[in-house]
């Protein structure tokens, strides 16, 4: 049944295109006259300012800090939130949570029982991760399920998500981000906290995904 | 310049002042206007209602008439350099629909395969009034005086089919004594749409109601546009509601107050 549907649909397409056998046409050239780059190196100060502007515009909270202050900045943000119990991916850099007065459950860690069940993720006060790349122009941060990002459920179920972004991960535009990503990995592009425009087409933040998005931008 | 006038069937039969003012204006600017008397209609109503087969002879006729007008006099033509029409949508039809109809009909074996190219050649020399003035003749101040409060409605086909952009506004701004008031939501369609106004009369009227409301907020004496058809629609609503605001074709304003004296 399925095979015949496949053959049938493919046959219909060829008929519709007026193609009777023969080789496939060559790909037609695509005019790519749009900007493929904002012309600034990853992490350039202008890009960092742009990223912060765009993140704040879509209601994310942003803290900027020097590399040696990540632990303190994360700790202060978590303390302000009143977060006590946090989830983290297995590859989170050691220093990031070192200064925070929190209990950490690590996803996929043997001592925490392997992959954290959804109920556990639903009960924690938040999650802290890194990211793969950030796009300044659109205020987007991409998670790619590498060890410091974790699997997708980890950053979805908790209501509070803190992402540490390193300056060298910040590129200008979408065309600059895609070549840095591996299509074989599950990817989540995050632009601000969860939101909806479904009521009178006006945007309000906070639906099913994390309602609070905090970004710690590490400069220098 | 020697210019052929395509009066358009609507202006010819119902709104002669738009075509007359075009003649008076161009003559005042020192150009010679000819009116190829064989002309009728661009066939747009037929095409836009789905009757392309019926439109074909009308299109063929239009191409014949204006091809002759554009031919040098030595070869039996009128030797005009350009064709002008006081209508964005009729020029839009000539420019964007004639060749399409010709090709479709040629595919069906109903039209000569050479018609599309001939239609394109005529279309390439056909201009809407503001295009002719600004782009071809290079004038924005036509030396007119029109001491009235006026608002301008950019008709959809001038705006989005021909992309006349702000040419009509530039011409209006240069008219002496004219108080130009911006029309809110100007780029919204007035709801005419040819047979749409009859086939979907309720929706058309709802669109017109909003256009009239916008016109009223400008407190203008006159609403102007480059298309007699849209003006007929807006004017039909203004008249029914006794709003008092008049509709005047762009050509009449550019011809200047008192232009009728030249008739």
């Amino acid at each position: 049944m399925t095979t015949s549907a496949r053959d049938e649909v493919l046959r219909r397409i060829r008929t519709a295109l007026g193609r009777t056998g023969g080789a496939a046409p060559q790909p037609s050239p695509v005019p790519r006259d749009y900007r493929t780059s904002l012309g600034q190196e990853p992490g350039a100060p202008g890009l960092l300012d742009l990223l912060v502007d765009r993140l704040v515009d879509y209601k994310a909270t942003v803290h900027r800090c020097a590399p040696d202050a990540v632990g303190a900045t994360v700790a202060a943000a978590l303390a302000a939130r009143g977060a006590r119990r946090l989830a983290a991916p297995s590859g989170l850099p050691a220093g990031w949570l070192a200064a925070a007065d929190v209990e950490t459950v690590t996803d996929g860690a043997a001592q925490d029982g392997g992959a954290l069940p959804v109920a556990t993720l639903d009960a924690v006060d938040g999650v802290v991760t890194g990211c793969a790349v950030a796009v300044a122009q659109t205020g987007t941060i991409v998670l790619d399920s590498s060890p410091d990002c974790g699997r997708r459920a980890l950053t979805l179920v908790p209501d509070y998500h803190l992402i540490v972004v390193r300056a060298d991960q910040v590129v200008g535009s979408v065309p600059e981000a895609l070549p840095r990503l591996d299509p074989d990995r599950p990817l989540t592009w995050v632009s601000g906290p969860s939101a909806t425009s479904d009521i009178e087409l006006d945007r309000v933040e906070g639906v099913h995904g994390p309602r609070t998005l905090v970004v710690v931008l590490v400069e220098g | 310049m020697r210019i052929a006038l395509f009066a358009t069937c609507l202006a010819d039969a119902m709104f002669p002042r738009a075509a007359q003012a075009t003649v008076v204006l161009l003559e005042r600017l020192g150009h010679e206007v000819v009116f190829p008397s064989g002309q009728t209609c661009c066939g747009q109503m037929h095409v836009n209602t789905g009757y392309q087969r019926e439109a074909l002879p009308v299109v063929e006729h239009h191409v014949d008439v204006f091809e002759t007008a554009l031919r040098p006099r030595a070869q039996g033509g009128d030797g005009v350099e350009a064709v002008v029409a006081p209508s964005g949508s009729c020029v839009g039809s000539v420019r964007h629909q004639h060749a399409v109809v010709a090709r479709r009909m040629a595919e069906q074996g109903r039209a000569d395969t050479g018609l599309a190219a001939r239609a394109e050649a005529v279309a390439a020399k056909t201009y809407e009034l503001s295009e002719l003035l600004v782009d071809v003749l290079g004038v924005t101040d036509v030396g007119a005086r029109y001491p009235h409060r006026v608002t301008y409605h950019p008709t959809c086909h001038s705006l989005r089919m021909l992309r006349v952009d702000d040419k009509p506004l530039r011409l209006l701004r240069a008219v002496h004594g004219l108080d130009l008031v911006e029309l809110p939501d100007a780029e919204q369609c007035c709801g005419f749409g040819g047979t749409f106004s009859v086939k979907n009369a309720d929706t058309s009227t709802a669109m017109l109601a909003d256009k009239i409301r916008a016109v009223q907020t400008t407190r203008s004496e006159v609403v102007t546009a480059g298309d007699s058809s849209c003006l007929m629609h807006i004017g039909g609503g203004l008249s029914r509601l006794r709003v008092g605001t008049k509709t005047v074709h762009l050509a009449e304003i550019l011809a200047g107050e008192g232009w009728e004296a030249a008739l």
Partner: protein
Amino acid sequence: MTTFLGMPGLPVATERGTLRGPDTFPVAARRALADTQLRKNLGHATSTIRAKRARVVGELDDWEELRAAGAAIKADVMARLPELLVQLEENVTARGGHVHWARDADEANRIVLDLVRAAGTPDDPVTSVVKVKSMATQEIGLNEALAEAGIAAVETDLAELIVQLSDDTPSHILVPAIHRNRAEIRQIFLDHMPDVDPGLTDEPRVLAMAARAYLRRTFLAARVAVSGANFAIAETGTLAVVESEGNGRMCLTLPQTLVTVMGIEKLLPTWRDLEVFLQLLPRSSTGERMNPYTSMWTGAPRTSDGAPDGPQEFHLVLLDNGRTATLADEAGRQALHCIRCSACLNVCPVYERTGGHAYGSVYPGPIGAVLTPQLAGMHGHGADAPAGGDPVDSLPYASSLCGACFDACPVRIDIPSMLVHLRAKHVETAQAQRRVPGLPASAENAAMSAAAWVMQDAGRFSFAERGLQLGRLLARDGRIRSLPPPLSAWTTSRDVPAPPAETFRKWWARTRGDRS
């Protein structure tokens, strides 16, 4: 179903009533226009989104270049569709996914139903699935088909949930509940949402919170999700879903089984092509630089450590359902380039006033007016019968041809030209069906033929103008207030000026007649 349109051997969609409404557009529109609350809601929502879109599109100085690239990529997809689909299938399969093909709605529904059943066991059958908003599954009537088999489909998108709770139908392709305002939504929640807080206010934030609370447990317990897809990358086998609320992420991440139903036209050839579409889509649809969440996955997704990450049972259903018939029409094919951003709806002066229900199809607005007739087929009646005739045949006429849709479309679909083309197809079909030797097919056809006969000769035309002069007798104070049908449709709301005393032609002959 048979049709006179399209190529022989290319069946149009098998319908479950999702494309062909009960009434023609003029009839349904008249009803909608009388609903003042609806008019207010639509006017407010569409003007809000138009302003937002204009702002973010204005931020990009290469918008036109992006549109040109988007259009070219889609044209390339259509030209190479068989090869690209096979490439997609290979890549999805190689990464642990399964690909199914469906000729029509019934076949697609059967495939999904079998997959849902297979996800359960005899002792523990699957009785509900969570759904991400998807036009394809709406088009095939999947929820109804699942319901007939005893499986509840829970819509998780906020607007879709509003529609589902109130047993309504969608009226917009992006925001199905655009016809409802906050007060109405509050009432729907109070009436239909179990365990809702009776103190619920109509603050959008509070309403969104209510939806979060209501769906939370459902998400965490879901075993099967059904989604659509915004894009599928042939080169990599990657699927992408673009959303806002996180309900998409929930469905695409937490259940063990994911079934994605996708029209065969949703393909993009290469990974790089996303750089165009991820810029075009969010700015055109919700008027954002980027939507809050975009999920991408390939086959049965794994983390970089090789651990499962999301549904390990992944099924992709590729749907024809009239698309190949659409593809067969060179002048109509462009409708398949649509990325369902809804920009054309939001700028359409007709849609803004009538809303989506008047179109009677899951695809309303300008794109619906060109896509629906091609997917469902036109029958050729209704050219001159606004109250009778086929609802689908009335759709290409539901436009003033103002062209705003083309300017807004991120992939430059020339909707106005396609409307004109479909009107011609409609008339040609009607003529072929109703041809009696010597008689035109309809009164409208007779009038059009007569007008064309007049218009191809200046002598006939000036003779007709003389007849028009008689109209002066109908005028009072220079205006005519009433004309007989069908022109009465004009004069019910608009005057007609009295014909002039002298036509232009006569004036010219009188004043300059010796000149040419």
